[in-house]
């Protein structure tokens, strides 16, 4: 179990619940949710978020624009971001990586896959900061 607070950004309530439950089963019970990028930016300012999991296709502000806004803000620019999306073309992945997403999962995913990705990102960030 870890006390890391994870912000889940997805317009589908089903997917938000699935990610929340999956995170619980792999030891990340502390989560908050947002329905789109705009909502997520507000949540970021009001909660001490340690990690972001975001979808791409969302109304109001999509995931890619949200990531760009997060990276443009010096306070959150180094916040780890994992993108979970149905968009799985090579072009999509490259676009997300260019927006400086830390890692990428194409739906459907398993709790184990989610855990490995999160731990992988955290490990990489630790190595880079040492």
């Amino acid at each position, binding site marked *: 179990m870890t006390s890391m607070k994870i912000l889940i950004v997805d317009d*589908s309530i089903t997917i938000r619940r699935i990610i929340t*439950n999956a995170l619980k089963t792999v030891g990340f019970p502390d989560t908050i949710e947002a329905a789109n990028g705009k909502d997520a930016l507000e949540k970021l300012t009001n909660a001490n978020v340690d990690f972001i999991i975001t979808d791409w296709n969302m*109304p109001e502000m999509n995931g890619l624009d949200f990531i760009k806004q997060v990276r443009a803000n010096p306070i959150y620019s180094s916040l780890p971001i994992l993108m979970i999306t*149905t968009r799985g073309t*090579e072009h999509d992945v490259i676009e997300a*990586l260019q927006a400086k997403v830390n890692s990428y999962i*194409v739906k459907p*995913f*398993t*709790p184990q896959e989610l855990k490995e990705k999160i731990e992988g990102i955290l490990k990489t960030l630790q190595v880079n900061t040492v």
Partner: protein
Amino acid sequence: MNQQELDGILQKAADLKVFCEYGQRTVPVLDEIASFVRKITPAIEDLRAVVEVSMVNIPKAANQLGRVTQATEQASTDILNTLDRMVATLDEVIGSVATGMVSSELGAATKKMAAIVKTLVDKSGWDEDIVKLAEAWDLHLRSMRMSGPTSNLERLLKDLQNDCTEIMMALQVQDITQQHIGAVMGTIEAVAGGLQKLTNGFFGTNTEENLPQLSNLPEQTEQENVGETERKKMVESLLMKARAGQL
């Protein structure tokens, strides 16, 4: 009438002759065009009817797809609610099994015995034999908790809980199908837009105001026709390249 005037009349007569000859040549062509127009008019009317019907039916089809998405989302929410309750119940049962308190009678008896042993130890002034009895009782309790049927039950319950998680994860299909339906709806909207332009331009009718509008259509995304495993491999390969600074 002088020569000059005569020449003028002759010139006009020549011009009239050319015009008449031209008319003789063009009249059959104009007749053919008129005949062609008469023939294609019913076809154009048929096409207009088809387009107008399509303009009404295409948005209807898109709305029906939208309702499919809503229905599956509602079903997914209901299933998730049930699974949440099942997982919570299983948590409670696993907790009871893990502490060896499956039967309330067994639990009450165990607690009573534990209290008696503790009193005995206290009253005996930590008599060596009584302390040994307390230690033996403690060992007995531990072995009871780790006994075959109980630990087996705990394992089975955890398996059930894992099954619940798997069902939950399988519900991702709702979101995935929603995205694909969104792409189809995007295509339908494009076709409807094309037909609208056709009716406005070709038939000179503006059907835009009378037609139901497709709203809130998700963005259409082009997806490569590859399997899940191949796609995940591709993603990992790109992530590795990005980490190595090769993107």
